[in-house]
Protein backbone atom coordinates (compact mmCIF):
# COMPACT_ATOMS: atom_id res chain seq x y z
CA UNK A 1 0.00 0.00 0.00
CA UNK A 2 2.90 2.33 0.63
CA UNK A 3 4.13 2.04 -2.93
CA UNK A 4 0.98 3.38 -4.58
CA UNK A 5 1.59 5.66 -7.56
CA UNK A 6 0.30 9.21 -7.60
CA UNK A 7 -2.64 8.45 -9.88
CA UNK A 8 -4.09 5.88 -7.48
CA UNK A 9 -3.09 7.82 -4.40
CA UNK A 10 -6.55 9.19 -3.93
CA UNK A 11 -8.13 5.75 -4.01
CA UNK A 12 -5.55 4.50 -1.59
CA UNK A 13 -6.30 7.34 0.79
CA UNK A 14 -9.99 6.56 0.63
CA UNK A 15 -9.26 2.93 1.30
CA UNK A 16 -7.13 3.79 4.32
CA UNK A 17 -9.85 5.97 5.75
CA UNK A 18 -12.46 3.28 5.29
CA UNK A 19 -10.50 0.54 7.01
CA UNK A 20 -8.47 2.39 9.59
CA UNK A 21 -10.79 2.17 12.57
CA UNK A 22 -11.07 -1.57 12.68
CA UNK A 23 -7.65 -2.53 11.41
CA UNK A 24 -5.95 -3.18 14.79
CA UNK A 25 -8.87 -5.27 15.99
CA UNK A 26 -8.82 -7.34 12.82
CA UNK A 27 -5.12 -8.01 13.24
CA UNK A 28 -5.67 -9.14 16.81
CA UNK A 29 -8.36 -11.57 15.67
CA UNK A 30 -6.18 -12.83 12.83
CA UNK A 31 -3.26 -13.35 15.18
CA UNK A 32 -5.41 -15.15 17.73
CA UNK A 33 -6.86 -17.49 15.13
CA UNK A 34 -3.45 -18.22 13.67
CA UNK A 35 -2.01 -18.83 17.14
CA UNK A 36 -4.73 -21.32 18.02
CA UNK A 37 -4.23 -23.10 14.71
CA UNK A 38 -0.48 -23.33 14.89
CA UNK A 39 0.14 -23.45 18.67
CA UNK A 40 -0.39 -27.16 19.25
CA UNK A 41 1.73 -28.00 16.22
CA UNK A 42 4.54 -25.80 17.52
CA UNK A 43 4.26 -27.42 20.93
CA UNK A 44 4.75 -30.83 19.38
CA UNK A 45 7.70 -29.64 17.32
CA UNK A 46 9.43 -27.94 20.23
CA UNK A 47 8.57 -30.79 22.57
CA UNK A 48 10.56 -33.10 20.35
CA UNK A 49 13.68 -31.21 21.44
CA UNK A 50 13.10 -31.94 25.13
CA UNK A 51 13.99 -34.89 27.28
CA UNK A 52 11.12 -36.87 28.66
CA UNK A 53 12.20 -35.96 32.20
CA UNK A 54 12.15 -32.27 31.31
CA UNK A 55 8.70 -32.70 29.73
CA UNK A 56 7.34 -34.40 32.82
CA UNK A 57 8.79 -31.82 35.20
CA UNK A 58 7.59 -28.77 33.29
CA UNK A 59 5.11 -29.66 30.54
CA UNK A 60 4.46 -26.11 29.34
CA UNK A 61 8.01 -24.78 29.34
CA UNK A 62 10.64 -24.34 26.71
CA UNK A 63 13.31 -27.00 26.24
CA UNK A 64 15.84 -26.96 29.07
CA UNK A 65 18.25 -28.18 27.87
CA UNK A 66 17.65 -28.40 24.10
CA UNK A 67 18.37 -31.97 23.07
CA UNK A 68 18.55 -33.25 19.54
CA UNK A 69 18.79 -36.93 20.32
CA UNK A 70 15.07 -37.58 19.82
CA UNK A 71 15.02 -36.01 16.40
CA UNK A 72 18.29 -37.63 15.36
CA UNK A 73 17.19 -41.05 16.58
CA UNK A 74 13.92 -40.84 14.65
CA UNK A 75 15.42 -39.25 11.53
CA UNK A 76 18.05 -41.99 11.31
CA UNK A 77 15.74 -44.89 12.10
CA UNK A 78 14.93 -47.24 9.22
CA UNK A 79 11.47 -47.57 10.70
CA UNK A 80 10.58 -43.91 10.13
CA UNK A 81 11.89 -43.91 6.57
CA UNK A 82 10.14 -47.19 5.91
CA UNK A 83 6.88 -45.56 6.97
CA UNK A 84 7.55 -42.56 4.74
CA UNK A 85 8.45 -44.80 1.80
CA UNK A 86 5.32 -46.87 2.29
CA UNK A 87 3.15 -43.75 2.36
CA UNK A 88 4.86 -42.41 -0.76
CA UNK A 89 4.31 -45.69 -2.59
CA UNK A 90 0.65 -45.90 -1.55
CA UNK A 91 -0.22 -42.26 -2.24
CA UNK A 92 1.86 -42.11 -5.43
CA UNK A 93 0.37 -45.25 -6.97
CA UNK A 94 -3.15 -44.28 -5.98
CA UNK A 95 -2.70 -40.85 -7.54
CA UNK A 96 -1.27 -42.18 -10.80
CA UNK A 97 -3.94 -44.84 -11.02
CA UNK A 98 -6.88 -42.56 -10.37
CA UNK A 99 -5.64 -39.85 -12.71
CA UNK A 100 -5.21 -42.32 -15.58
CA UNK A 101 -8.43 -44.28 -15.07
CA UNK A 102 -10.43 -41.15 -14.22
CA UNK A 103 -9.12 -39.15 -17.17
CA UNK A 104 -9.95 -41.92 -19.61
CA UNK A 105 -13.50 -42.28 -18.37
CA UNK A 106 -13.99 -38.51 -18.13
CA UNK A 107 -12.72 -38.12 -21.69
CA UNK A 108 -15.36 -40.51 -22.99
CA UNK A 109 -18.14 -38.91 -20.95
CA UNK A 110 -17.13 -35.41 -22.00
CA UNK A 111 -16.32 -35.83 -25.68
CA UNK A 112 -18.18 -38.86 -27.01
CA UNK A 113 -21.83 -38.98 -27.88
CA UNK A 114 -23.50 -42.30 -27.13
CA UNK A 115 -26.46 -43.81 -25.44
CA UNK A 116 -25.81 -44.34 -21.74
CA UNK A 117 -23.48 -41.38 -21.43
CA UNK A 118 -25.74 -39.68 -18.89
CA UNK A 119 -26.13 -42.95 -17.03
CA UNK A 120 -22.40 -43.46 -16.83
CA UNK A 121 -21.90 -40.00 -15.39
CA UNK A 122 -24.73 -40.49 -12.90
CA UNK A 123 -23.23 -43.79 -11.79
CA UNK A 124 -19.88 -42.20 -10.93
CA UNK A 125 -21.52 -39.13 -9.39
CA UNK A 126 -23.61 -41.39 -7.17
CA UNK A 127 -20.34 -42.81 -5.91
CA UNK A 128 -19.98 -39.68 -3.79
CA UNK A 129 -22.77 -41.12 -1.65
CA UNK A 130 -20.82 -44.32 -1.01
CA UNK A 131 -18.30 -43.49 1.66
CA UNK A 132 -15.37 -45.78 2.32
CA UNK A 133 -16.54 -46.24 5.90
CA UNK A 134 -19.66 -48.08 4.74
CA UNK A 135 -17.76 -50.39 2.41
CA UNK A 136 -14.80 -51.01 4.71
CA UNK A 137 -15.80 -54.32 6.31
CA UNK A 138 -16.96 -56.21 3.19
CA UNK A 139 -14.01 -54.74 1.33
CA UNK A 140 -11.65 -56.29 3.84
CA UNK A 141 -13.28 -59.69 3.39
CA UNK A 142 -13.24 -59.28 -0.38
CA UNK A 143 -9.54 -58.42 -0.36
CA UNK A 144 -8.87 -61.49 1.78
CA UNK A 145 -10.55 -63.67 -0.84
CA UNK A 146 -8.50 -62.05 -3.58
CA UNK A 147 -5.28 -62.58 -1.65
CA UNK A 148 -4.70 -58.83 -1.43
CA UNK A 149 -5.19 -58.55 2.32
CA UNK A 150 -2.06 -57.26 4.02
CA UNK A 151 -0.57 -55.95 0.77
CA UNK A 152 -0.07 -52.46 -0.63
CA UNK A 153 -2.29 -53.33 -3.58
CA UNK A 154 -5.08 -53.99 -1.10
CA UNK A 155 -4.91 -50.32 -0.14
CA UNK A 156 -4.06 -48.86 -3.54
CA UNK A 157 -6.83 -50.47 -5.60
CA UNK A 158 -9.74 -49.52 -3.31
CA UNK A 159 -8.10 -46.11 -2.89
CA UNK A 160 -8.26 -45.56 -6.63
CA UNK A 161 -11.84 -46.79 -6.79
CA UNK A 162 -13.03 -44.45 -4.05
CA UNK A 163 -11.22 -41.46 -5.55
CA UNK A 164 -12.81 -41.99 -8.97
CA UNK A 165 -16.12 -40.14 -8.40
CA UNK A 166 -14.44 -36.90 -7.32
CA UNK A 167 -11.90 -37.17 -10.12
CA UNK A 168 -14.45 -37.75 -12.85
CA UNK A 169 -16.82 -35.07 -11.60
CA UNK A 170 -14.05 -32.48 -11.64
CA UNK A 171 -12.56 -33.57 -14.96
CA UNK A 172 -15.70 -33.91 -17.10
CA UNK A 173 -16.60 -30.20 -17.20
CA UNK A 174 -12.94 -29.42 -17.62
CA UNK A 175 -12.64 -31.57 -20.72
CA UNK A 176 -15.94 -30.40 -22.07
CA UNK A 177 -14.98 -26.74 -21.78
CA UNK A 178 -12.39 -27.22 -24.51
CA UNK A 179 -14.10 -25.88 -27.64
CA UNK A 180 -15.32 -28.21 -30.37
CA UNK A 181 -13.63 -26.01 -32.95
CA UNK A 182 -10.29 -27.20 -31.69
CA UNK A 183 -11.34 -30.79 -32.26
CA UNK A 184 -12.66 -29.91 -35.73
CA UNK A 185 -9.39 -28.24 -36.59
CA UNK A 186 -7.40 -31.19 -35.33
CA UNK A 187 -9.50 -33.59 -37.37
CA UNK A 188 -9.11 -31.51 -40.52
CA UNK A 189 -5.39 -31.70 -39.93
CA UNK A 190 -5.73 -35.48 -39.85
CA UNK A 191 -5.80 -36.26 -36.13
CA UNK A 192 -7.98 -39.11 -34.86
CA UNK A 193 -10.05 -38.60 -31.76
CA UNK A 194 -7.43 -40.39 -29.70
CA UNK A 195 -4.72 -38.29 -31.34
CA UNK A 196 -6.68 -35.19 -30.41
CA UNK A 197 -6.84 -36.52 -26.84
CA UNK A 198 -3.08 -36.95 -26.57
CA UNK A 199 -1.88 -33.86 -28.34
CA UNK A 200 -4.46 -31.23 -27.47
CA UNK A 201 -6.81 -32.25 -24.70
CA UNK A 202 -4.17 -33.62 -22.36
CA UNK A 203 -1.92 -30.53 -22.33
CA UNK A 204 -4.94 -28.22 -22.02
CA UNK A 205 -6.43 -30.07 -19.08
CA UNK A 206 -3.24 -30.09 -17.02
CA UNK A 207 -4.58 -27.75 -14.28
CA UNK A 208 -7.56 -30.04 -13.76
CA UNK A 209 -5.29 -33.07 -13.62
CA UNK A 210 -3.08 -31.40 -11.04
CA UNK A 211 -6.12 -30.62 -8.87
CA UNK A 212 -7.52 -34.14 -8.92
CA UNK A 213 -4.05 -35.56 -8.45
CA UNK A 214 -3.47 -33.49 -5.33
CA UNK A 215 -6.88 -34.40 -3.91
CA UNK A 216 -6.22 -38.10 -4.43
CA UNK A 217 -2.76 -37.79 -2.92
CA UNK A 218 -4.10 -35.98 0.16
CA UNK A 219 -6.80 -38.57 0.73
CA UNK A 220 -4.40 -41.46 0.39
CA UNK A 221 -1.52 -39.94 2.35
CA UNK A 222 -3.78 -39.13 5.30
CA UNK A 223 -5.89 -42.28 5.06
CA UNK A 224 -6.10 -44.40 8.19
CA UNK A 225 -9.17 -46.64 8.10
CA UNK A 226 -8.18 -48.65 5.04
CA UNK A 227 -4.56 -49.27 6.13
CA UNK A 228 -5.84 -50.12 9.62
CA UNK A 229 -8.15 -52.82 8.28
CA UNK A 230 -6.00 -54.07 5.44
CA UNK A 231 -2.38 -53.68 6.56
CA UNK A 232 -2.25 -53.59 10.36
CA UNK A 233 -4.08 -56.93 10.58
CA UNK A 234 -1.81 -58.49 7.95
CA UNK A 235 1.70 -59.85 8.04
CA UNK A 236 3.60 -56.83 6.76
CA UNK A 237 6.32 -55.77 9.26
CA UNK A 238 5.79 -52.44 11.04
CA UNK A 239 8.72 -50.78 9.25
CA UNK A 240 6.70 -50.99 6.08
CA UNK A 241 3.41 -49.62 7.37
CA UNK A 242 2.26 -46.24 6.03
CA UNK A 243 2.87 -43.20 8.23
CA UNK A 244 -0.51 -42.80 9.98
CA UNK A 245 -0.37 -46.44 11.08
CA UNK A 246 3.32 -46.26 11.87
CA UNK A 247 2.93 -43.19 14.06
CA UNK A 248 0.08 -44.66 16.09
CA UNK A 249 2.02 -47.87 16.51
CA UNK A 250 5.15 -46.02 17.63
CA UNK A 251 3.21 -43.93 20.15
CA UNK A 252 1.63 -47.04 21.66
CA UNK A 253 4.93 -48.86 21.83
CA UNK A 254 6.93 -45.99 23.35
CA UNK A 255 4.13 -44.30 25.28
CA UNK A 256 6.48 -43.73 28.24
CA UNK A 257 9.03 -41.86 26.15
CA UNK A 258 7.03 -38.69 25.42
CA UNK A 259 9.98 -36.85 23.89
CA UNK A 260 10.55 -39.57 21.31
CA UNK A 261 6.85 -39.74 20.45
CA UNK A 262 6.73 -35.96 19.98
CA UNK A 263 9.76 -36.11 17.69
CA UNK A 264 8.28 -38.97 15.67
CA UNK A 265 4.96 -37.15 15.37
CA UNK A 266 6.56 -33.87 14.29
CA UNK A 267 8.74 -35.55 11.69
CA UNK A 268 5.65 -37.33 10.41
CA UNK A 269 3.94 -33.95 10.01
CA UNK A 270 6.67 -32.41 7.87
CA UNK A 271 6.24 -34.10 4.48
CA UNK A 272 2.51 -33.51 4.39
CA UNK A 273 2.86 -29.90 5.51
CA UNK A 274 5.47 -29.01 2.93
CA UNK A 275 3.54 -30.62 0.14
CA UNK A 276 0.12 -29.38 1.10
CA UNK A 277 1.05 -25.82 1.96
CA UNK A 278 2.42 -25.52 -1.55
CA UNK A 279 -0.88 -26.78 -2.91
CA UNK A 280 -3.24 -24.94 -0.55
CA UNK A 281 -5.17 -23.04 -3.23
CA UNK A 282 -5.73 -26.12 -5.33
CA UNK A 283 -6.91 -28.19 -2.39
CA UNK A 284 -9.47 -25.60 -1.34
CA UNK A 285 -10.57 -24.97 -4.93
CA UNK A 286 -10.72 -28.64 -5.71
CA UNK A 287 -12.64 -29.59 -2.60
CA UNK A 288 -15.24 -26.90 -3.12
CA UNK A 289 -15.58 -27.98 -6.73
CA UNK A 290 -15.78 -31.62 -5.87
CA UNK A 291 -18.36 -31.23 -3.21
CA UNK A 292 -20.47 -28.78 -5.10
CA UNK A 293 -20.63 -31.30 -7.92
Amino acid at each position, binding site marked *: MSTMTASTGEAAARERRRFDWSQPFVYVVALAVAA*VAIGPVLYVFVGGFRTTADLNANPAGLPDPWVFTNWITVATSPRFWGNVTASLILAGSTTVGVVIAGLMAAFVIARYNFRGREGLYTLFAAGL*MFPLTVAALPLTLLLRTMGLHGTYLGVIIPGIAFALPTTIIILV*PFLRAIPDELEEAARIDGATRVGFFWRILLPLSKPGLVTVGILAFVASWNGYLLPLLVISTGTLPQEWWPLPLGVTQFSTQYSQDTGAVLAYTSLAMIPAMVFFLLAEKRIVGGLTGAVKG
Partner: protein
Amino acid sequence: MTAVVSSGPAVSAGPDPHPASRPPSRTGVVRKRFEIALFTAPALVLFIGFVILPVVLAAVYSFYNLPAGFRWDNLADPDRFVGFDNYVRALSTPEFQRAIGNTFLILVMSLLIQGPLAIGIALLLNRKLRGRGVFRLLIFVPYVLAEVIAGLAWKLLLQPGGGVNAMLEACGLGFLRHNWLADPDIALWTIFLILSWKYIGFAILLMLAGLQGVPDELAEAAQIDGATWWQTQRYITLPLLAPTVRIWAFLSIIGALQVFDMVWVTVAPAVRRISTETMATYMVQQGQFGGQPGYGSAIAVILFVISLIIALVYQRLALRRDLTGAITRGVQ
Protein backbone atom coordinates in the same frame (compact mmCIF):
# COMPACT_ATOMS: atom_id res chain seq x y z
CA MET B 1 -22.23 -15.50 -9.96
CA THR B 2 -25.10 -15.86 -12.39
CA ALA B 3 -24.31 -19.53 -12.59
CA VAL B 4 -24.61 -19.91 -8.85
CA VAL B 5 -28.24 -18.91 -8.69
CA SER B 6 -29.29 -20.75 -11.81
CA SER B 7 -31.16 -23.97 -11.29
CA GLY B 8 -30.59 -27.41 -12.69
CA PRO B 9 -30.73 -31.11 -11.94
CA ALA B 10 -28.39 -32.43 -9.32
CA VAL B 11 -26.51 -34.64 -11.71
CA SER B 12 -26.18 -33.88 -15.38
CA ALA B 13 -23.69 -34.77 -18.05
CA GLY B 14 -24.67 -31.58 -19.83
CA PRO B 15 -25.69 -30.94 -23.40
CA ASP B 16 -24.70 -33.11 -26.29
CA PRO B 17 -21.07 -32.29 -26.98
CA HIS B 18 -21.25 -33.22 -30.66
CA PRO B 19 -24.48 -32.05 -32.24
CA ALA B 20 -24.93 -33.38 -35.75
CA SER B 21 -21.31 -34.01 -36.49
CA ARG B 22 -19.58 -36.39 -38.90
CA PRO B 23 -21.37 -38.82 -41.22
CA PRO B 24 -21.22 -42.22 -39.52
CA SER B 25 -19.27 -44.81 -41.43
CA ARG B 26 -19.42 -48.49 -40.53
CA THR B 27 -15.80 -48.74 -39.41
CA GLY B 28 -16.13 -45.38 -37.67
CA VAL B 29 -18.99 -46.66 -35.52
CA VAL B 30 -17.15 -49.85 -34.58
CA ARG B 31 -14.03 -47.92 -33.81
CA LYS B 32 -15.95 -45.44 -31.67
CA ARG B 33 -17.61 -48.22 -29.68
CA PHE B 34 -14.26 -49.87 -29.20
CA GLU B 35 -12.76 -46.63 -27.95
CA ILE B 36 -15.63 -46.04 -25.53
CA ALA B 37 -15.34 -49.54 -24.11
CA LEU B 38 -11.58 -49.40 -23.85
CA PHE B 39 -11.48 -46.02 -22.18
CA THR B 40 -14.22 -46.58 -19.62
CA ALA B 41 -13.33 -50.18 -18.75
CA PRO B 42 -10.64 -49.55 -16.11
CA ALA B 43 -12.69 -46.99 -14.20
CA LEU B 44 -15.89 -49.03 -14.46
CA VAL B 45 -14.29 -52.28 -13.33
CA LEU B 46 -12.58 -50.66 -10.36
CA PHE B 47 -15.64 -48.66 -9.38
CA ILE B 48 -18.09 -51.52 -9.58
CA GLY B 49 -15.74 -54.06 -8.04
CA PHE B 50 -14.44 -52.01 -5.14
CA VAL B 51 -17.14 -49.42 -4.42
CA ILE B 52 -20.53 -50.75 -5.50
CA LEU B 53 -19.91 -54.43 -4.81
CA PRO B 54 -18.70 -53.99 -1.20
CA VAL B 55 -21.69 -51.82 -0.36
CA VAL B 56 -24.02 -54.43 -1.86
CA LEU B 57 -22.13 -57.15 0.01
CA ALA B 58 -22.57 -55.19 3.25
CA ALA B 59 -26.30 -55.39 2.70
CA VAL B 60 -26.06 -59.15 2.10
CA TYR B 61 -23.80 -59.84 5.08
CA SER B 62 -26.05 -57.84 7.35
CA PHE B 63 -28.63 -60.63 7.21
CA TYR B 64 -26.19 -63.28 8.42
CA ASN B 65 -24.53 -64.22 11.64
CA LEU B 66 -21.01 -64.55 10.31
CA PRO B 67 -17.91 -65.84 12.14
CA ALA B 68 -14.63 -63.90 12.36
CA GLY B 69 -12.98 -66.30 9.94
CA PHE B 70 -15.50 -65.61 7.21
CA ARG B 71 -15.72 -67.98 4.26
CA TRP B 72 -18.01 -67.58 1.27
CA ASP B 73 -19.87 -70.83 1.92
CA ASN B 74 -21.02 -69.35 5.24
CA LEU B 75 -23.59 -67.51 3.13
CA ALA B 76 -25.02 -70.83 1.90
CA ASP B 77 -25.52 -72.09 5.45
CA PRO B 78 -29.22 -71.63 6.30
CA ASP B 79 -28.46 -71.67 10.03
CA ARG B 80 -26.46 -68.51 9.63
CA PHE B 81 -29.23 -66.55 7.98
CA VAL B 82 -30.83 -64.42 10.69
CA GLY B 83 -33.04 -62.01 8.75
CA PHE B 84 -33.31 -58.63 10.39
CA ASP B 85 -31.95 -59.82 13.74
CA ASN B 86 -28.72 -57.85 13.37
CA TYR B 87 -30.68 -54.66 12.78
CA VAL B 88 -33.02 -55.28 15.66
CA ARG B 89 -30.10 -56.07 17.92
CA ALA B 90 -28.18 -52.94 16.83
CA LEU B 91 -31.06 -50.54 17.24
CA SER B 92 -31.97 -51.94 20.64
CA THR B 93 -28.41 -51.92 22.00
CA PRO B 94 -27.79 -48.95 24.30
CA GLU B 95 -24.17 -48.79 23.12
CA PHE B 96 -25.20 -48.25 19.51
CA GLN B 97 -27.98 -45.86 20.47
CA ARG B 98 -25.36 -43.84 22.29
CA ALA B 99 -23.11 -44.03 19.22
CA ILE B 100 -25.89 -42.57 17.07
CA GLY B 101 -26.51 -39.87 19.66
CA ASN B 102 -22.82 -38.98 19.87
CA THR B 103 -22.51 -38.83 16.09
CA PHE B 104 -25.46 -36.49 15.81
CA LEU B 105 -24.21 -34.36 18.69
CA ILE B 106 -20.94 -33.82 16.81
CA LEU B 107 -22.90 -33.08 13.63
CA VAL B 108 -25.20 -30.51 15.20
CA MET B 109 -22.49 -28.86 17.28
CA SER B 110 -20.28 -28.55 14.20
CA LEU B 111 -23.02 -26.73 12.33
CA LEU B 112 -23.99 -24.49 15.24
CA ILE B 113 -20.53 -23.56 16.45
CA GLN B 114 -18.01 -23.99 13.66
CA GLY B 115 -20.24 -22.42 11.01
CA PRO B 116 -20.99 -19.05 12.64
CA LEU B 117 -17.46 -18.82 13.99
CA ALA B 118 -15.94 -19.43 10.55
CA ILE B 119 -18.31 -16.97 8.88
CA GLY B 120 -17.59 -14.31 11.49
CA ILE B 121 -13.84 -14.68 11.20
CA ALA B 122 -14.01 -14.72 7.40
CA LEU B 123 -16.13 -11.53 7.33
CA LEU B 124 -13.64 -9.79 9.60
CA LEU B 125 -10.69 -10.87 7.55
CA ASN B 126 -12.21 -10.20 4.15
CA ARG B 127 -10.16 -7.08 3.48
CA LYS B 128 -6.69 -6.07 2.51
CA LEU B 129 -4.41 -7.28 5.27
CA ARG B 130 -0.69 -7.41 5.50
CA GLY B 131 0.39 -11.00 5.77
CA ARG B 132 -2.88 -12.35 4.49
CA GLY B 133 -1.11 -15.08 2.54
CA VAL B 134 0.81 -16.19 5.62
CA PHE B 135 -2.41 -16.21 7.62
CA ARG B 136 -4.11 -18.44 5.05
CA LEU B 137 -1.22 -20.88 5.22
CA LEU B 138 -1.17 -20.96 9.02
CA ILE B 139 -4.86 -21.68 9.46
CA PHE B 140 -4.59 -24.36 6.80
CA VAL B 141 -1.97 -26.31 8.78
CA PRO B 142 -4.36 -28.27 11.03
CA TYR B 143 -6.41 -29.26 8.02
CA VAL B 144 -3.53 -30.76 6.06
CA LEU B 145 -2.33 -32.94 8.91
CA ALA B 146 -3.60 -36.48 8.89
CA GLU B 147 -6.43 -36.75 11.41
CA VAL B 148 -4.52 -39.52 13.15
CA ILE B 149 -1.35 -37.49 13.52
CA ALA B 150 -3.23 -34.40 14.71
CA GLY B 151 -5.11 -36.65 17.12
CA LEU B 152 -1.91 -38.08 18.57
CA ALA B 153 -0.49 -34.60 19.01
CA TRP B 154 -3.57 -33.57 20.96
CA LYS B 155 -3.52 -36.76 22.96
CA LEU B 156 -0.06 -35.84 24.22
CA LEU B 157 -1.09 -32.24 24.89
CA LEU B 158 -4.19 -33.29 26.82
CA GLN B 159 -2.61 -35.88 29.10
CA PRO B 160 -3.19 -35.15 32.80
CA GLY B 161 0.42 -33.96 33.06
CA GLY B 162 0.49 -32.55 29.52
CA GLY B 163 0.88 -29.10 28.02
CA VAL B 164 -2.73 -27.92 28.18
CA ASN B 165 -3.18 -28.50 31.90
CA ALA B 166 0.21 -26.97 32.63
CA MET B 167 -0.70 -23.94 30.55
CA LEU B 168 -3.99 -23.53 32.43
CA GLU B 169 -2.12 -23.77 35.70
CA ALA B 170 0.36 -21.14 34.58
CA CYS B 171 -2.49 -18.76 33.69
CA GLY B 172 -4.05 -19.19 37.13
CA LEU B 173 -6.82 -21.32 35.70
CA GLY B 174 -5.76 -24.46 37.52
CA PHE B 175 -9.36 -25.18 38.51
CA LEU B 176 -10.01 -25.95 34.81
CA ARG B 177 -7.56 -28.84 34.85
CA HIS B 178 -9.13 -32.00 33.54
CA ASN B 179 -8.25 -35.44 32.39
CA TRP B 180 -9.59 -34.31 29.05
CA LEU B 181 -9.71 -37.51 27.07
CA ALA B 182 -10.18 -40.00 29.90
CA ASP B 183 -13.02 -38.38 31.83
CA PRO B 184 -16.21 -39.89 30.35
CA ASP B 185 -18.19 -36.74 31.19
CA ILE B 186 -16.16 -34.45 28.97
CA ALA B 187 -14.29 -36.71 26.52
CA LEU B 188 -16.84 -36.20 23.76
CA TRP B 189 -16.64 -32.43 24.13
CA THR B 190 -12.89 -32.63 24.00
CA ILE B 191 -13.16 -34.59 20.76
CA PHE B 192 -15.49 -31.95 19.40
CA LEU B 193 -13.00 -29.19 20.26
CA ILE B 194 -10.16 -31.05 18.55
CA LEU B 195 -12.29 -31.64 15.46
CA SER B 196 -13.23 -27.95 15.41
CA TRP B 197 -9.57 -27.00 15.68
CA LYS B 198 -8.77 -29.27 12.77
CA TYR B 199 -11.55 -28.27 10.41
CA ILE B 200 -12.37 -24.63 11.11
CA GLY B 201 -9.40 -23.35 9.12
CA PHE B 202 -10.77 -25.05 6.05
CA ALA B 203 -14.21 -23.54 6.73
CA ILE B 204 -12.68 -20.07 7.01
CA LEU B 205 -10.76 -20.50 3.76
CA LEU B 206 -13.92 -21.72 2.06
CA MET B 207 -15.88 -18.70 3.30
CA LEU B 208 -13.07 -16.33 2.27
CA ALA B 209 -13.12 -17.89 -1.19
CA GLY B 210 -16.89 -17.43 -1.29
CA LEU B 211 -16.54 -13.79 -0.24
CA GLN B 212 -14.20 -13.18 -3.18
CA GLY B 213 -17.20 -13.86 -5.38
CA VAL B 214 -19.24 -11.10 -3.77
CA PRO B 215 -18.74 -7.99 -5.91
CA ASP B 216 -17.26 -5.00 -4.05
CA GLU B 217 -19.60 -2.62 -5.90
CA LEU B 218 -22.62 -3.82 -3.96
CA ALA B 219 -21.06 -3.21 -0.58
CA GLU B 220 -19.74 0.14 -1.76
CA ALA B 221 -23.15 1.20 -3.00
CA ALA B 222 -24.69 0.23 0.32
CA GLN B 223 -22.06 2.23 2.19
CA ILE B 224 -22.68 5.28 0.03
CA ASP B 225 -26.36 4.93 0.91
CA GLY B 226 -25.34 5.13 4.55
CA ALA B 227 -25.33 1.49 5.60
CA THR B 228 -23.10 0.61 8.54
CA TRP B 229 -20.49 -2.11 8.28
CA TRP B 230 -22.76 -4.52 10.09
CA GLN B 231 -25.77 -3.68 7.91
CA THR B 232 -23.69 -4.20 4.79
CA GLN B 233 -22.60 -7.63 6.00
CA ARG B 234 -26.06 -8.62 7.15
CA TYR B 235 -28.07 -7.55 4.12
CA ILE B 236 -25.59 -7.69 1.25
CA THR B 237 -22.66 -9.98 1.92
CA LEU B 238 -24.22 -12.77 3.96
CA PRO B 239 -27.08 -13.51 1.56
CA LEU B 240 -24.60 -13.68 -1.30
CA LEU B 241 -22.41 -16.01 0.74
CA ALA B 242 -25.30 -18.40 1.29
CA PRO B 243 -24.33 -20.88 -1.47
CA THR B 244 -20.89 -21.28 0.06
CA VAL B 245 -22.37 -21.77 3.51
CA ARG B 246 -24.76 -24.42 2.22
CA ILE B 247 -21.91 -26.30 0.60
CA TRP B 248 -19.77 -26.08 3.71
CA ALA B 249 -22.66 -27.39 5.79
CA PHE B 250 -23.10 -30.32 3.44
CA LEU B 251 -19.42 -31.17 3.70
CA SER B 252 -19.52 -30.82 7.44
CA ILE B 253 -22.54 -33.09 7.80
CA ILE B 254 -21.05 -35.83 5.64
CA GLY B 255 -17.78 -35.60 7.53
CA ALA B 256 -19.43 -35.65 10.95
CA LEU B 257 -21.41 -38.78 10.13
CA GLN B 258 -18.18 -40.64 9.50
CA VAL B 259 -15.98 -39.47 12.34
CA PHE B 260 -13.65 -42.34 13.04
CA ASP B 261 -9.90 -41.63 13.03
CA MET B 262 -9.92 -38.94 15.70
CA VAL B 263 -11.98 -40.92 18.18
CA TRP B 264 -10.18 -44.16 17.47
CA VAL B 265 -6.68 -42.86 18.20
CA THR B 266 -7.28 -40.35 20.99
CA VAL B 267 -9.61 -42.13 23.38
CA ALA B 268 -8.79 -45.36 25.18
CA PRO B 269 -11.17 -48.18 24.18
CA ALA B 270 -12.66 -48.48 27.67
CA VAL B 271 -13.54 -44.78 27.78
CA ARG B 272 -14.66 -44.80 24.19
CA ARG B 273 -17.14 -47.57 24.86
CA ILE B 274 -18.96 -45.64 27.56
CA SER B 275 -18.72 -42.08 26.30
CA THR B 276 -17.39 -41.27 22.84
CA GLU B 277 -18.38 -44.15 20.57
CA THR B 278 -19.49 -42.99 17.11
CA MET B 279 -21.33 -45.03 14.51
CA ALA B 280 -18.11 -45.64 12.57
CA THR B 281 -16.01 -46.65 15.59
CA TYR B 282 -18.76 -48.96 16.79
CA MET B 283 -18.94 -50.54 13.35
CA VAL B 284 -15.19 -51.21 13.17
CA GLN B 285 -15.05 -52.35 16.79
CA GLN B 286 -17.83 -54.89 16.38
CA GLY B 287 -17.28 -55.92 12.77
CA GLN B 288 -13.53 -56.12 12.55
CA PHE B 289 -12.05 -56.47 16.00
CA GLY B 290 -15.11 -57.98 17.66
CA GLY B 291 -15.21 -60.72 15.04
CA GLN B 292 -18.83 -60.15 13.97
CA PRO B 293 -18.71 -59.13 10.30
CA GLY B 294 -22.44 -59.72 9.89
CA TYR B 295 -23.41 -57.47 12.78
CA GLY B 296 -20.82 -54.87 11.73
CA SER B 297 -22.26 -54.88 8.21
CA ALA B 298 -25.72 -54.14 9.60
CA ILE B 299 -24.21 -51.11 11.35
CA ALA B 300 -22.59 -50.09 8.04
CA VAL B 301 -25.93 -50.30 6.27
CA ILE B 302 -27.64 -48.22 8.98
CA LEU B 303 -24.86 -45.62 8.66
CA PHE B 304 -25.25 -45.67 4.89
CA VAL B 305 -29.01 -45.24 4.99
CA ILE B 306 -28.81 -42.38 7.47
CA SER B 307 -26.14 -40.63 5.38
CA LEU B 308 -28.07 -41.17 2.18
CA ILE B 309 -31.32 -39.81 3.59
CA ILE B 310 -29.62 -36.75 4.99
CA ALA B 311 -27.69 -36.16 1.78
CA LEU B 312 -30.75 -36.51 -0.44
CA VAL B 313 -32.96 -34.34 1.75
CA TYR B 314 -30.25 -31.73 2.00
CA GLN B 315 -29.64 -31.75 -1.75
CA ARG B 316 -33.31 -31.35 -2.39
CA LEU B 317 -33.93 -28.62 0.16
CA ALA B 318 -30.76 -26.60 0.13
CA LEU B 319 -28.17 -27.49 -2.44
CA ARG B 320 -30.26 -27.84 -5.54
CA ARG B 321 -29.96 -24.36 -6.91
CA ASP B 322 -26.22 -24.18 -6.32
CA LEU B 323 -25.23 -27.26 -8.21
CA THR B 324 -25.09 -26.33 -11.86
CA GLY B 325 -22.95 -23.30 -11.32
CA ALA B 326 -20.90 -25.07 -8.75
CA ILE B 327 -19.70 -27.74 -11.11
CA THR B 328 -18.40 -25.24 -13.60
CA ARG B 329 -17.05 -22.87 -10.99
CA GLY B 330 -15.20 -25.52 -9.09
CA VAL B 331 -12.88 -26.44 -11.92
CA GLN B 332 -11.40 -23.09 -12.82
